Every structure is written in structure tokens, then in C-alpha cells.
């Protein structure tokens, strides 16, 4: 069944849209990620214009992260104080990201920056995650008890000025790293159409030493709030949010996420992280190849506004 997308101005098979939404939703439930980094490229490769894909996926990420954020909130797994700092700085970053997005679009370099961004961010994050999870799996095999790092161990980052007490996370740290992480993820997330959960979680764990029971909930709330703001910004700035496209993806995504979450309970944490690392690396390699290999067609075209 074909469905006409009013903003993308093309007709796409409805089952295809709900299907890729569901498949990515399954993975996002399995790994506890938003899934934007998979969905945006999939849409671009299937013919949706890059600006529409990026802007609409931000809407889908909001939906995919909402139910997770709510359940963590009920369990008390969100540090509201910390989340507030992250969200506010994230929105500032998102303003920058959306403005940069429009600038690149007129310069004709949007596709290049999206490819480079995916390659660098996904490539480095994927490598780090793969090394970390392989170590954990090997240690478990050889019977060594893995000693988790203590969350209240301090490093130099915590000693920076403007220290704030985050009661729920039992932290007394400088707000500077918190704000910098927020701005960076806001910028990257709005530019690339990803929630940034897979950057946020390691940053909270390894840089800020946020306790494990607060990490996922706080990161999910930050993703929901920041992507909501980004959706509105994209709607105002580039008018390329396709509500129908986003809705089709959301329906598949929220359904798929529930099945993914129950499947995820069958696997151990380090196995999940290892699989996610492979997935992230595969997407990074796909983008890397598109930059390095000679394109099928060196020429491309785009609409640069209405005539008149």
C-alpha cells in the first residue's frame, strides 16, 4: 500500500516504512538506544531527501525514548537536577546544530558532513565499545571477577570550578563538563538526526561517574527533551519535518522496541554492548566507503528554493 508523504513529496510503501521503523525499534529496545543513527541512513538510502530524513527521525527518536524515560521515572531512575543542566545546554547546542544544518544545505555540503560525522563519531564510539566489551567477555571467560570502577572515584574533570551538588547521583562536581557534554550532544544530535544516547551513556559513566542506576534514565530524559526541541527547531528553520513519515516510523518503532526490550533480557550486558559496537561500526564503515570510493555518478542535483 503506497502512502504519499506530504513534505517529502513522494509516495512510499506504508509497510516498508512501518517495517524499518519496527526493525530499528527492535534494535533500539534491545540495546536501549534511540535508533536514529540507523533510521536516518536507511531513509536516505531509500530515497527520502536527507533534510527530511534527518528532521523527521528526530520526531521518531522522541517517541522511541518516551516509554523508556517514563518507566525509569516511575522507578526513580532519573536525576532531574542533572538532566536539567544537560537539557538546557543540549538545547543551546541544538540551536547551533540546526543553524549549521541550514548553512550546509545551502552550501551543498550537508551530505558530506553527515557522512563524515557518522564516520568519525560512530567509528570512534564503535571501536571503544568493541574493545571494552571484548575485554569484559574475555575476563568473564577466564573466570576473573570484574571489579566495577567505583562511581565516586574522582578525576581532574570533577575539580573544575562551579561545583554543584547533584543529590540523587551523590555527586559534587563542576558543571562545566556537564554543560560541555550537553552542548556537544545537542549540536551533533540535531545535525546528524541521532539522539546521542550511545555517546551520552559512556560520557555519564566514564567522565562524570554517574551511578549506574541513574545513567540510562537520565540519558533517556535528556534525549526526549533535546530531540523534542530539535524537532521544533527543524520545523521552524527548514520546514522539513514530515509528520506522516515520522508517525509511520513511530508506530513501527514503539511496537518493535517492546519486543526488543524483552529479547534483550536474554543476553548479558557485555554481549549486548559487543553486538551494538559491531552494528555501530558497520554503519560507520558504510559511510566511510561512500566517502572514499568513487561515486557511481559524480553529479547530483537539489532544489534550491522556489523559482520566481
Amino acid at each position, binding site marked *: 500500500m503506497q502512502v504519499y508523504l506530504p513534505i517529502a*513529496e513522494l509516495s512510499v510503501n506504508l509497510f516498508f516504512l512501518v517495517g524499518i521503523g519496527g526493525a530499528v525499534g527492535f534494535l533500539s529496545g534491545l540495546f536501549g538506544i534511540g535508533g536514529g543513527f540507523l533510521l536516518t541512513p536507511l531513509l536516505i538510502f531509500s530515497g527520502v531527501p536527507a533534510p527530511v530524513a534527518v528532521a523527521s527521525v528526530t520526531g521518531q527518536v522522541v*517517541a522511541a525514548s*518516551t516509554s523508556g524515560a517514563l518507566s525509569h521515572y516511575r522507578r526513580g531512575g532519573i536525576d532531574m537536577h542533572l538532566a536539567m543542566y544537560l537539557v538546557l545546554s543540549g538545547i543551546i547546542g541544538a540551536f547551533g546544530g540546526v543553524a549549521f544544518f541550514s548553512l550546509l544545505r545551502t552550501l*551543498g555540503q550537508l551530505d558530506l558532513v553527515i557522512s563524515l560525522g557518522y564516520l568519525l563519531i560512530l567509528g570512534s564510539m564503535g571501536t571503544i565499545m568493541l574493545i571494552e566489551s571484548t575485554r569484559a567477555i574475555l575476563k568473564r571467560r577466564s573466570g576473573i571477577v570484574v571489579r566495577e570502577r567505583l562511581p565516586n572515584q574522582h578525576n581532574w574533570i570533577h575539580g573544575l570550578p562551579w561545583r554543584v551538588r547533584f543529590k540523587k547521583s551523590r555527586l559534587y562536581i563542576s558543571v562545566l563538563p556537564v554543560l560541555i557534554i550537553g552542548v556537544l550532544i545537542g549540536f551533533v544530535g540535531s545535525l546528524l538526526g541521532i539522539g546521542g544516547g550511545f555517546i551520552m551513556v559512556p560520557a555519564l559513566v566514564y567522565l562524570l561517574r554517574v551511578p549506574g542506576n541513574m545513567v540510562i534514565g537520565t540519558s533517556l530524559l535528556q534525549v526526549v527533551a533535546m530531540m523534542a526541541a530539535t524537532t521544533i527547531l527543524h*520545523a*521552524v528553520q527548514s*520546514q522539513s519535518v514530515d*509528520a506522516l513519515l515520522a508517525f509511520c516510523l513511530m508506530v513501527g518503532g*514503539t511496537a518493535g522496541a517492546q519486543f526488543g526490550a524483552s529479547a534483550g533480557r536474554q543476553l548479558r550486558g557485555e554481549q549486548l554492548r559487543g553486538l551494538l559496537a559491531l552494528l555501530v561500526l558497520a554503519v560507520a564503515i558504510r559511510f566511510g566507503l561512500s566517502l572514499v570510493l568513487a561515486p557511481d555518478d559524480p553529479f547530483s542535483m537539489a532544489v534550491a528554493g522556489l*523559482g520566481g
Partner: protein
Amino acid sequence: MRRFFALLVLSLLTVLPADAARLVSQLSNDNIQITSSFDGERLTFFGSVVPDAGSTERYVEGPFHVVIVVMGPTQNRVARQMTHNFGIWLNTEQVTFRNFPSYFQVLSSGRLLDITDVTTLSAEHILPESHTLLPNEAGWWKTAIFGRELIRLMTEKRLFGISENAVNFLSDNFYSAQLTLPSDAPPGPYIALTYVFKDGELIARRSEGFAVRKIGFERFVAQAAVQQPFVYGVLCVLLALVTGWLGGVLFKR
């Protein structure tokens, strides 16, 4: 007196060309509506070559050739070229074509070059290339190269094309032609120009307009996104929040 009449008839005959003809044409559908299930639409053009008003002749003699040019709303379109720099491929050069047709199809009853000469085809903007030959700040050399590539890209997307046997003559002077508008045909005002040629000469022409527009829900969404972008964005977020929450509630086990 008889001589005067004879002169008058003679002068009338010289004023009226022998093949004074006009075109009577019609379009199957002048309002194409894009609904949620829009998957392209088939249009039929038909018409007849008849003697001009006031002509003494009852019918016109062929053989005629008909060329129909269907043109979509104009946009500014940019063509870009990737080059290999520092080991990666990136867009380095671009040329913007202002008021470039978003859709351009030529239907004809025979090979265009058999119907008339290149000069007439160019002068009447029948060939797609004629839209890339307008003056451009990029310089004529780059304009020519990028223009050719842009037409190739548009043709690959089936937005541009020439179908040299699409017009069929059902009798000596009655023709019909079919055109399938693709689902990604840009919405807006379209124009269909019909040219009648005889022995390489343009003897009649006619233009008709039709509109491709979104209706109902699609129109509502597209208008809201442009006219009330902030409200539209907020509604998209609310939709996402409700869908996410509902999904969590419905599938909870």
C-alpha cells in the same frame, strides 16, 4: 463588375494561406489531486486540427505532426559535481539554474528532427536543453556542462523525457496522447503546450493549464508546516510523546 469580383476573390485567396488551420484540444483532467494514496496519474491529451475560423475550406489536409510539451512549476535547481580531494569525494562545484522546470516531458508523433529543424525546436523551447542555455553567472562553459548533466539526472528520475511516438493520429487530423504523471511529480501549476507542424512549418499552437495539488489531509499538513511552523513542530512533538507513551502502555506485559 465581374472583373471587380474576380479581383476581390483573387485577393482574398492570396490573403488566406491555403493551410489556415487551428487546433481544438482537450485534456482528460485539469485538476490532479494528491491524496494519501496518490501513486501517479494518467493524463490523456486529445484534439483535432480544423480549418481556421472564417476559412472557406471544410477540412484541412495533412499530414500533420503534433508535439506536446508538458511543463511543471519552476524551481531554482542546483547541479553539483563531486571531485576527489585529499582521498575523499566531495561536492566542489555547483551551478544554480534559476526558474528551471521541475517537470518537462515532450510527446510527439514522430522523430522531432523529422518534424522540424533544430532552430524552430530551440526557438519554441521544445528541447529540454533550451532551459539550460539561459544566461547564468557561472559562465557559459560551466553552464553547458552542468546543464547537460542536470537534464540527464532529471531524465533518470523520469521527471524529464522525450517520447517520440507518444502522439497517435487516429484519423488524418485527430490525435491523442497519453502521459503518466509519476507520484513524485512536484505539486503546482502545469502547462501543456501543443504545437501542430506541417511540412516542417509551425501552423498552429495552443496552451492549456492544469494543476497538481495536494488535497485534504496532505494539503492540511503541508500548509501547516509552512504557515504555522512552530505550532506544527509542537504538534509533531506531542504526537511523538503520545505515540511513545501509548506504545509503552499497549505492549506492556
